[in-house]
């Protein structure tokens, strides 16, 4: 009989370095609980619009189940070129400057692996989406954290960024509109960042997946600024704008050199994105504007409702101008983010994600997704009000 072994010894050191996700821990806490109201879901509560689903069904009926080009369906890339030219005057060549990926998650992973050499420093702006830091670690890079603050409405300032730049800095990962804060960047703010980027010869991975969920002002793609197109890879997708999370479709737009290099990884790891989702995405871009705008208007109404609600119950909440997250401050309750969130779940059956799951800069805050029905938001606010009142006693 051959001896048994401990399989964990086969796991690479770099994987062991990945810190456990604060959100995953919460998922485990919530599992099995009844009568829970969740503001912890980072995805739309809308079903993918019917015309998009219907096109996916139709494609399956026709037997469109093959591989596509590694870059993605040409029709989809053409449609993306047209869309971004129409929206922002951006001009991406569909044959060499666009790569269709399996969600923005894959786009992020291969963008980081394309750019980062072992030992390179990559600036991550926190509070941030949970995947950025592990992506950099897995690529052998060194994450350098820059914090945004409530006083700046969680926008990134050049003053905050500048001290973090060293001669080892290779890239910055940006995410505006931001998960978890809902912050957006003004054009002026982005211009200041762009100046620093050019001055220090850096590259930017710009995750703009919440682009269409901008409620005040107009979204400005970083790549639309003078001199930034070749210094930026824009990551985006269909999950948030068109409620297509489960279809797993994203894309990257950048210079031919970067996109080709990303494709080199993509062709061996993913080969191509699912064709059914790509066909749905073509339909979304061609005919999905009305449905998308309808969903955005609904988020906007909930945004006003939840922000007003938090401020009313004494949880100060600055105005999130994008995405579908409110980020109220709970630090004045005497509890840490995690304590507050865990007790809220335990005592009131309301799920909100502690801000420190998104980095130390999130400590003192909660991420509350308003991608939930008004009724659920109302109930959650009522329960939270009761919880906060009891804390005060």
């Amino acid at each position, binding site marked *: 009989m051959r001896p048994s072994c401990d399989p964990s010894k086969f796991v690479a050191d770099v994987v062991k370095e990945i810190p456990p*996700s604060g*959100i995953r821990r919460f998922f485990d806490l919530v599992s099995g609980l009844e009568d829970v109201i969740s503001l*912890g*879901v980072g*995805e739309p509560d809308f079903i993918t619009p019917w015309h998009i689903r219907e096109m996916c069904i139709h494609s399956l009926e026709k037997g469109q189940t093959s591989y596509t080009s590694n870059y993605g369906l040409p029709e989809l890339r053409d449609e993306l070129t047209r869309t971004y030219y129409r929206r922002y005057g951006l001009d991406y060549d569909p044959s060499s400057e666009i790569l269709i990926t399996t969600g923005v998650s894959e786009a992020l992973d291969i963008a980081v692996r394309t750019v980062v050499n072992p030992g390179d420093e990559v600036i991550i702006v926190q509070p941030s989406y949970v*995947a950025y830091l592990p992506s950099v670690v897995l690529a052998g890079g060194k994450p350098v954290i820059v914090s945004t603050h409530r006083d700046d409405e969680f926008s990134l300032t050049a003053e905050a960024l500048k001290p973090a730049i060293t001669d080892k800095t290779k890239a910055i990962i940006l995410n505006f509109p931001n998960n978890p804060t809902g912050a957006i960047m003004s054009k002026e703010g982005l211009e200041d960042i762009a100046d620093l980027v050019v001055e220090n010869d850096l590259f930017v991975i710009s995750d703009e997946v919440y682009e269409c969920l901008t409620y005040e002002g107009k979204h400005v793609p970083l790549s639309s600024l003078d001199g930034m197109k070749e210094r930026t890879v824009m990551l985006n997708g269909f999950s948030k704008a068109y409620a297509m999370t489960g279809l797993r479709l994203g894309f990257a737009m950048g210079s031919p050199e970067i996109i080709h290099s990303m494709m080199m990884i993509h062709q061996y790891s993913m080969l191509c994105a699912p064709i059914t989702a790509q066909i749905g995405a073509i339909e979304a871009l061609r005919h999905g504007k009305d449905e998308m705008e309808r969903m955005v*208007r609904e988020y906007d*109404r*909930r945004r006003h*409702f939840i922000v007003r609600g938090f401020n009313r119950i004494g949880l100060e909440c600055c105005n999130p101008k994008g995405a579908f997250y409110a980020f109220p401050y709970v630090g004045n309750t005497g509890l840490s983010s995690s304590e507050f969130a865990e007790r809220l779940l335990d005592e009131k059956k309301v799920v909100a994600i502690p801000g420190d799951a998104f980095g130390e800069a999130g400590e003192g805050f909660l991420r509350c997704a308003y991608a939930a029905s008004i009724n659920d938001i109302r109930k959650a606010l009522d329960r939270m009000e009761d919880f906060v009142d009891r804390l005060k006693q």
Partner: protein
Amino acid sequence: MDEKIRHILEILENDARTSPEEIASLTDMSAQDVSQTIAKLEETGVIRHYKTIVDWDLVGENDVYAVIELKVTLERNQGYQAIAERIYKFPEVRSVRLLSGNYDISLTVRGKSMKDVAFFVAEKIATLDQVQSTSTHFVLKTYKEDGVILHEPETIQRLPVSF
């Protein structure tokens, strides 16, 4: 259209019972401004009426609905408006629409029985001078009414927590 007005109209179209206070919370306006805006929209006829969509089947009411297609002849100096007015004043008539295509006007008629509806069409509608012909289609089942699906709508199954 002003974005705030669009928000108010969409909220009311979706649920006419939404209070001004709630609409205020949803649109970042004051309740007073919301009430004033709604009053103005009512005055100007943008908001025509508030009504309830009822699934009568669930309470055992067996009213019969029919869609009636009419071909009409227009009299000199009388447009479609005149014949529409003649028809829509009957309480049995629930909707009147002028259409393009093979026939001119489409009506929805409600009655207590098929016989009721048939007699109403034969006696009141077909006998009008301008009406050339009628074609009656009885409604067997209504799946969706005015944007509302009359059975359990689709629900989305999401994980309770996600990134």
